[in-house]
């Protein structure tokens, strides 16, 4: 991906990418770390802008680290309720039809095929 391509992407998609990187990490991340993690040619200033915007919206919390800040997602107080609802949703087989899920369940054969493909350097 080139710089130009990433800078042209809609703001929402960039926010989503930054947010995903923070959620995937166990520790708070600095703008530099987010930029390195995404490795997608985003300018540091762009990452910093997105992070401070998300912080102002109350989506992220931050702590001092060195001369700047490290950010992490705010754990929502309703987290447990939402998690339970999510569990209910996941058990309902009808949701299969209501929502297009990324991956369907695998048969043991499927699992072997996929493992072999990945081992062969897919």
């Amino acid at each position, binding site marked *: *991906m080139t710089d130009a391509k990433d800078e042209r992407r*809609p*703001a*929402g*998609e*960039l*926010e*989503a*990418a930054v*947010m*995903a*990187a923070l*959620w*995937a990490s166990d520790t708070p991340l600095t703008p530099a770390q987010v930029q390195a*993690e*995404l*490795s*997608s040619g985003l300018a540091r200033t762009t990452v910093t802008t997105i992070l401070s915007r*998300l912080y102002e919206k*109350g*989506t992220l919390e931050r702590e001092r680290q060195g001369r700047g800040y490290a950010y992490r*997602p*705010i*754990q*929502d107080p*309703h987290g447990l*309720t*939402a*998690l339970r*609802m*999510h*569990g*209910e*949703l*996941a058990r*309902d087989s*009808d*949701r*299969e*039809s*209501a*929502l*297009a*899920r*990324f*991956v*369907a*369940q*695998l*048969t*043991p*054969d*499927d*699992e072997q*095929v*996929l*493992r072999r*493909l*990945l081992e062969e350097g*897919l």
Partner: protein
Amino acid sequence: MTTTLLLIPLLLPCASPFLARRILDHRSPVAALWTLTVSALLLAAGTVAALGTFAVTGLLKIPAFAALGELVHPLRTPSERLILPVAALAAGLLTLGTFALGRSAVRQAAGLRTARSQAERRSTAGDLCVVDSPHPDAYALPGRPHRIVVTTGMLRALRPDEREALFAHERAHNTGGHRYFLAAAELAAHCHPALRAVREAVRLVAERAADEAAATAVGDRRLTARAIARAALAAHAADSDRPAFTPAATTGPVPRRVAALLSPAARTPRILPWIAVLLAACAVISCATAATGALSVHQDIEVAQGEASR
């Protein structure tokens, strides 16, 4: 004659599972999505029209309803002894189908509502809604605005570039309006049991369409294939305590999607998509015979009402 005509729309959908399975390999996913969905709807309409005509015919053989229908002569039907059980069966199937469809619609609407209220409650960034759950899962949540819901388990199972492929896939579901295709396939599957196989084909081909869109968006087919494979394995590992869902001998949908992405993109089939033409022909014949049968019965009813002469 009319009875035979009306049996055709009930039998034609039985050919659809075979055709639907073949169409997956032959067409671009978006074209296949349209062909399958429209054909399924037409086949479903033919089935309902045929069943409805049988039910009405039988009903008008009952004196009370014949009086209500202002029949002055008895309605002419092929076999007096056969028509009542057939009509009762048709009416029963229609009632059952309607009931099952209603139940499924209510449950799916409830599922969507739960998902939406959950998404509203979560902190979102852009269109992404993260659910803090170790179970890897991701889905598109259409609405205003469109959202994509991803669990932390899924985010951690994938590398950053693979996450971008996943997001592009879910966004393609939303912008492609795939939920309408899925709903139409669901509707058709409730009209004729043979159309359930077509519903599965529609689901798979909608995933394929989103996969292709994702591959174009991230500019890398291998990367998209890898994201799907790794996400599926992560989800599989997380719910290995659940019983396997089908011990099917055939390859499941995920390896088929991966294989399709690994094959070269430039696969524009110059051969005439016979299978698609065949499926569309089945659908059109089904509707045409159902309409002819229904019109013929309508004519008989008018004769019985003394409004038309034979």
